[in-house]
């Protein structure tokens, strides 16, 4: 049922995170994201939070665990569209996600993705491997 929230755009996997994620739905969505990466060989996963206006512990855990798992699968997580109020709460809670790139919106996300591709797949060794892995997959 969350397939509609995940779209493939070039080598970008676009994930529209729905509002009010429940505990089991978090796991469900994350599983679907991982399956899509494997299926499409996406290099970059863009988590679009523009629909989310509440920041709770599920939310934090979702971003954190998803980015870690995506990295393990050789792709990169970019977050976009965080609402101001959500950011305020995240900062208050110290949930600053230092290892995750954030962009303003989808345009910037695409621009970032392209720059990553032009720079030879990835700015880092990891991402090159990921790209390789992805290509192989």
């Amino acid at each position, binding site marked *: 049922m969350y397939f509609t929230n995940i779209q493939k755009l070039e080598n970008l996997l676009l994930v529209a995170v729905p509002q009010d994620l429940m505990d089991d739905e978090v796991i469900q969505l994350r599983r679907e994201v991982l399956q899509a990466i494997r299926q499409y060989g996406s290099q970059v996963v863009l988590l679009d939070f523009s629909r989310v206006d509440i920041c709770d512990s599920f939310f934090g855990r979702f971003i954190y665990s998803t980015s870690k798992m995506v990295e393990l699968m050789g792709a990169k997580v970019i977050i976009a569209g965080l609402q101001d109020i959500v950011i*305020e709460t995240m900062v208050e809670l110290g949930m600053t996600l230092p290892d995750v790139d*954030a962009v303003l919106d989808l345009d910037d996300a695409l621009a970032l993705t392209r720059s990553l591709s032009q720079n030879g797949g990835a700015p880092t060794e990891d991402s090159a491997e990921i790209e390789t892995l992805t290509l192989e997959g």
Partner: protein
Amino acid sequence: MTVASDIEDRLARVEADLDRVSVLLNISLALNSARTDDEILSALSQYGIKHGAASAALLYIDSNPNDEPEWAQIVAIWQRPGRVSPSISLGMRFYLPDFSFYRNWLTNSKNAQLVSNVANDPQLDENTRQLYLMAGVKTTAAIPLTRNEQWLGLLTFSWDELHTFSNQEVAIYNSLPALAGPSVENRRLLLNMEHIISEKTAELTESRQMLETILDTIPLGVFWKDRDGHFLGCNQLVARDAGLQSPTEIIGKTDEDFAWRDYAAQYRADDLSVIESGQPRLNIEELLASADGSRVWLRTSKIPLRDASGAIIGVLGMYEDITAQKEAKSRLFDSQQRLELAVRSANIGLWDWDFRTDRVEFHNQDLPRMLGYEPGELTNTREAFTELIHPDDLQMMLAALQAHIADPSVPYNTEGRIRMKDGSWKWVLGSGVIVERDADGQPLRMIGTYQDIDQQKRFAEERERLQQEIIEAQRQALAELSTPIIPIMDRIIVLPLVGGIDTQRARDIMRAVLEGITRYRAKIVILDITGVPVVDSGVADHLNRTIQAARLKGAQTIVTGITDAVAETIVDLGIDWHTFETLRDLQSGLVMALDRVGYRLQQVGNGNGK
């Protein structure tokens, strides 16, 4: 007998008759003009005295004319000068049954009783004889005074020498009773009348004095007037109100003559209605202007004044000064009214709690009405009333009550909410005081009020809310002023910070930064802290959060304006600022920013124009 002697005899008899007639005429004339006992005696006794009487006495018989006479009293006395008899004096009374001489004479004879020699006359009883002998009387004559055959009195002549009565004397003495009768009777009647009058006068004076005393003592003004409105009299109180010295001065005057003349017409109308209808008018409340200038309220009653035949001859009035009552009543009424008004306008409900019965009385219905109940609808027990108090306020109100019960000097003043009939809550100010305690100091009765302060309370809340809004609006305006976002180039915004940074301002800065990023699609945010006077760990922490937030929004932050002092502080405090770029001034910040977004500053020409 010779003719001459016969003629002489006849002539002598005629002369004697003439003499007698002239004597009796004289006595008669004198009697006619006599008015007093002494004059009567003098008139009657002139002939006897002429014939050598030593004394004469006039005795009236003090008796009922229809009865046997019993007492005789000497009412007038004449004595020859130089001869004073101790046995005869004015006012002496004789009990006639003890003196049978008089008694016999009174009952049996209508003629003068002549006693030529007291010492041996058989007519005299021993008492009479002793009386005369003691007085040195040798000869006496007792002449009854009658009228229509009733004994009226007695005239006596006494001689201290033996005296022989001539025929002429006998004839005259025998004529005296008839002659003296009318005068003596008149005199007796007059005396009787005088006696009766004096008795009646005494009675009248006494009752009149009593009446006057009563009239002048009672706290009522009493007056009486004739049909034409002229005063016939009054008591002291009316005289005083009228400014008169004595009640008699009022006689003949009318209401027009006194200080109350302004009300005369009304008084006259009342008088006339009483006079014409014959019905009393009672308890008229009216004003009177008294002579001292004061206005007094009277309660007046007027009743018709009638003569002996029952005809109405005027009006009798009495009045009571009710000014004090009236004023007291009016003051009471005023203060009651004022209190009621105050209570009502202040929206105060009264309650009266009897601890013995645990009942709460509402003296007026303001309290129930205040709470939206109809009169009588509110159960007036303490329990029922306590249930109406808001549970959040109950403890506090009960505590205040306990404090007041324990120590009367602690006032019972408390605010709380009470449930209205429709279920809503009303703020009230409760006040009360214990007015009665038993011997042990336990409260028996408490009286108090609940004042509706709902509106004040709401006004206060509204005021507070408005104040908050104003403060918020002002703060907003200041925040916008203090967090200006300046877009200097594509995707670059500058935020020059001026002034101190506290928690609230830090939040404002963060929001401004996030909004600025969205609005200008900024990739670079330059935070210039040149204008921040003090950078301590607090400020550093605030800035750090803002930078993290900007990063999550997809923008990089460059902090510019790091002075040498700030640099020192940052390091001394051990603050970690390595996760973002810091530069000394805005210029170098701009260069770096442009570089980041893909621009490069290049000097064109030599900088001096051409």
